[in-house]
């Protein structure tokens, strides 16, 4: 058996998703669009398109929602990278009115803009951490671990919780963030 789902199998697998599967996909899209120049619906549609046209291939061993989540992650990351490389395009005369050759502006963010972006991102991160400042130490350690990139099992060992308690605490963190920023992660 081919280890990769065929196009027909993929379509069938997606169409067979339960209501919760579709809702889950939407939530993941919203999450990956946080602080990115993307809309959740566009991200979802692009992930579907790449799955269907074969640009991304789904191994049989990977769940369909996880596969689409990985596709969205990749597309969203690329969108962020290419935004910096492809500034807005517009037509300009090659020779200016004064007869001098057109000198294109430098579209990269200047030091001041970079500092502003860095401060805004740092402020956002602090606001997320502050949501748990008055909470139990476990939630604080967990969100700090997530931010530092400590992965699931390692983090679970660090906070010494069983799987159920760990999942429950992680859900509490996610839901508190959802409720604190219903319109997106904006400081």
């Amino acid at each position: 058996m081919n280890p990769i789902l065929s196009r027909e199998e993929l379509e069938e697998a997606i169409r067979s998703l339960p209501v919760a599967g579709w809702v889950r996909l939407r939530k993941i899209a919203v999450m990956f669009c946080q602080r990115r120049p993307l809309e959740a619906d566009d991200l979802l549609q692009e992930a579907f398109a790449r799955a269907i046209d074969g640009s991304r291939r789904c191994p049989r061993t990977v769940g369909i929602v996880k596969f689409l989540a990985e596709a969205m992650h990749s597309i969203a990351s690329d969108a962020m990278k290419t935004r910096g490389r492809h500034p807005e395009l517009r037509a300009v005369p090659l020779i200016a009115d004064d007869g001098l050759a057109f000198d294109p502006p430098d579209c990269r963010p200047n030091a001041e803009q970079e500092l502003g972006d860095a401060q805004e991102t740092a402020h956002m991160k602090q606001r997320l951490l502050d949501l748990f400042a008055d909470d139990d130490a476990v939630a604080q350690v967990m969100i700090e671990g997530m931010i530092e990139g400590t992965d699931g099992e390692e983090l679970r060992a660090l906070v010494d919780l069983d799987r159920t308690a760990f999942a429950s605490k992680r859900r509490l963190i996610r839901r508190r963030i959802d409720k604190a920023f219903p319109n997106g992660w904006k400081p």
Partner: protein
Amino acid sequence: MTDDKERAALERLKSALVEDILAAPDGEILAEAQEDGSDPEAVAAAVRALFEKSVAAEKKARLTAAQAAVAADRRRRLTAVPSDPAEARRRLNHLLARHPETAGKLTMAARKGQSGDLSDDEVRGLLEDLQDLGLSTGEEPEGR
């Protein structure tokens, strides 16, 4: 800390939260949607519609590509002067028979084509001339 590092930190947090969304039971996902004021059925219908839109767009793109490939192949067959001398002669005769007015305007060589006095190179050259005049020199079926 630079903006890149701060961004990376938030990206790691997002990945961890997505892991949680993936791990949450269906019932909790539905309950969360309702808690947030969304109708899960409506959300599901909207995402399903996006999927079907993507499927339709991809099918359309495939159809357009297939049509372009067929058209390109047809153009290639219509414009290609055959390298086989017998086939080139057959096409020339066929063409002159179909377009006697054109044959009449052409040189004596064209009329010689019908009598079989032309060399293979002359036949191919004549087919190219007819092609330049806008006549299809390929395998276009009758009546099309």
